[in-house]
């Protein structure tokens, strides 16, 4: 794998996929360096999954070019398939089979003989904490276990490139952390990971570079730091001891932060977006504002300073909020993923 250093794991130019009227992917250019985690960030229906499916040879692009380690996804699809693995957004394992059966089946299909396949499956189940559940049908697994067996299935042969399509959507925080640890371990072994996500903090935690996608186009690209500073704001939330102080606190914060302060549903709390400007970064400015509240005799029980959310990144980059606009004026766009999404939601509630 070392001879691959410096080479691009993924290179696309002007990648297009249309579904009828909808241009689901509308000229995407990506350059993913080998040996890193590359985050593709965007809301539902932005074209993330469609892009991944084209790169994984599951969909034919309608325009543009895509190469994986220099191999064209259309003309050298078979070569590409031997280098990549895909863990889709919805369990890419057979839910009727047990965890062990799934892994043995796939190991056999990857060319392992029966004893080697069993051995490999057992080792992965062990490393992923699934030994106790090995002989249970995957449909009885919890969301986190299902994800793990799915990722295990993707690394039966350590792939050169691993696609993870929204690997933590619908997981509880603990399972999400487990997945993050696994992703870090995978990339530490030299595998390149392309990760799609709706969460900025996930991309921030894992990815070396991030492309932000909206309505089928890359609207921003860079390191997580660059991206966040381009947004340049955080959000601060303050909870007061006494509801009576809220109006006064609002005035203090509004003056000090130079921004609008919203009164939350909770009668003792307020929140505001903190832009970074000449007055310093969001954290610095928020700290100063808190000091002023104390000076004014207002007791603060709790406060939090959040990173800019994906919504804010979107607002900053596109001037429009993420979800509702897209699904309202483009119902056809929603159907691309929504059918499957609905079934995924259903599964979540069942689990």
């Amino acid at each position, binding site marked *: 794998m070392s001879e691959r250093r410096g080479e691009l794991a993924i290179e696309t130019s002007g990648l297009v996929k249309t579904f009828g009227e909808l241009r689901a992917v509308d000229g995407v250019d990506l350059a993913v360096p080998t040996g890193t985690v590359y985050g593709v960030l965007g809301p539902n229906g932005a074209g993330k999954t469609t892009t991944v499916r084209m790169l994984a040879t599951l969909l034919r692009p309608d325009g543009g070019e895509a190469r994986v380690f220099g191999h064209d996804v259309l003309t050298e699809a078979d070569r590409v398939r031997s280098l990549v693995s895909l863990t889709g957004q*919805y369990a890419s394992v*057979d839910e009727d089979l047990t965890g062990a059966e799934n892994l043995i*089946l796939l190991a056999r*299909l990857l060319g392992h003989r029966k004893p080697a396949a069993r051995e490999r499956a057992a080792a992965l189940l062990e490393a*992923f*904490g699934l030994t106790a559940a090995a002989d249970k049908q995957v449909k009885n697994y919890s969301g*986190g276990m299902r994800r793990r067996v799915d990722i295990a299935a993707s*690394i039966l042969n350590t792939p050169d490139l691993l696609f993870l399509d929204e690997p933590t959507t619908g997981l*509880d925080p603990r399972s999400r952390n487990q997945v993050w640890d696994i992703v870090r371990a995978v990339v*530490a072994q030299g595998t390149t990971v392309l990760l799609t996500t709706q969460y900025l903090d996930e991309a921030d935690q894992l990815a070396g570079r991030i492309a932000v996608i909206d309505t089928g186009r890359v609207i921003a690209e860079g390191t997580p730091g660059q991206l966040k500073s381009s947004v340049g704001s955080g959000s601060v939330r303050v909870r007061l001891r006494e509801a009576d102080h809220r109006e006064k606190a609002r005035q203090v914060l509004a003056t000090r932060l130079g921004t609008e302060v919203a009164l939350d549903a909770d009668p003792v709390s307020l929140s505001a977006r903190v832009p970074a400007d000449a007055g310093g970064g969001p954290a610095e400015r928020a700290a100063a504002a808190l000091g002023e509240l104390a000076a004014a005799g207002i007791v603060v029980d709790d406060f939090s300073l959040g990173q800019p959310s994906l919504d804010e990144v979107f607002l900053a980059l596109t001037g429009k909020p993420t979800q509702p606009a897209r699904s309202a004026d483009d119902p056809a766009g929603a159907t691309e993923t929504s059918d499957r999404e609905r079934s995924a939601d259903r599964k979540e509630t069942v689990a």
Partner: protein
Amino acid sequence: MSTAAETTTTDAERAAGTAEAADGFEPDRATLAAVLAPAERPPRPSPLTASTVFGWRAMLKIKHVPEQLFDVTVFPVMMTLMFTYLFGGALAGSTSEYLQFLLPGIMVMSVVMTTMYTGVAVNTDIAKGVFDRFRTLPVWRPSAMVGYLLGDMLRYALASVVILTLGLVLGYRPDGGPVGVTLAILLLVGFSFAFSWIWTMFGLLLRSEKSVMGISMMVIFPATFLSNIMVSPDTMPGWLQGFVDVNPVARLVAAVRGLMNGNVEAGQLLWVFVAAGVLIAVFGTLTMRLYNRK
């Protein structure tokens, strides 16, 4: 630490009623690194190995969901009993007379009818993510589809044996002897394999299980009823005889009947082989086109 404890309980609660007791998994860096260490990749499996592994998957599904064998056990029994006693007296004077005529045909009918479940199985699978994984594997492309059909061939064989056994109990006596009967079942299962490619195509083409079922019925009912299964075509109007004459299912019935009665003609067998070859060539190709473009 308290948050960790909380999430553990949530996990456990969520798992209550499922297989999971408590999911105390802590990813261990060293263990993960060990299993992830790049190892030499084995050579890709041969088309035959890949297909049989997919066939094994079909077996595993039968193991986990044995109810799906109803259609190849209970259904054929129903069909045989129903038609023997419904038509026997009227058409042949007695049920035992009629059974001699009907049994090979009803065997073909039951098996051909169960082939449509292949399309339903393919269609339900595509809706699931596992299909995406299969399609990204570097294996011989048709192997996933061939795997379904290998599993189904076992079902077809099972249905045939069930009907034959019931027939023997009811008094059916094949003049072709054990060899003729065995060859007849092999021919039937082989032809059904070829015929099933129609359903893999529809399974990939249509959007829902229901539409697959709907189309299947529309093909299967005329193909099985408008044939020589229930009655000899002699009394049918000319245009219908024309249809029966080119209906591959009717040709198959003639060959199966011939083998079981011990009076098969080479022409009958040849017709079935050619029809099977054409079905695979046409619908196998269409299936693979759809599979690659899905």
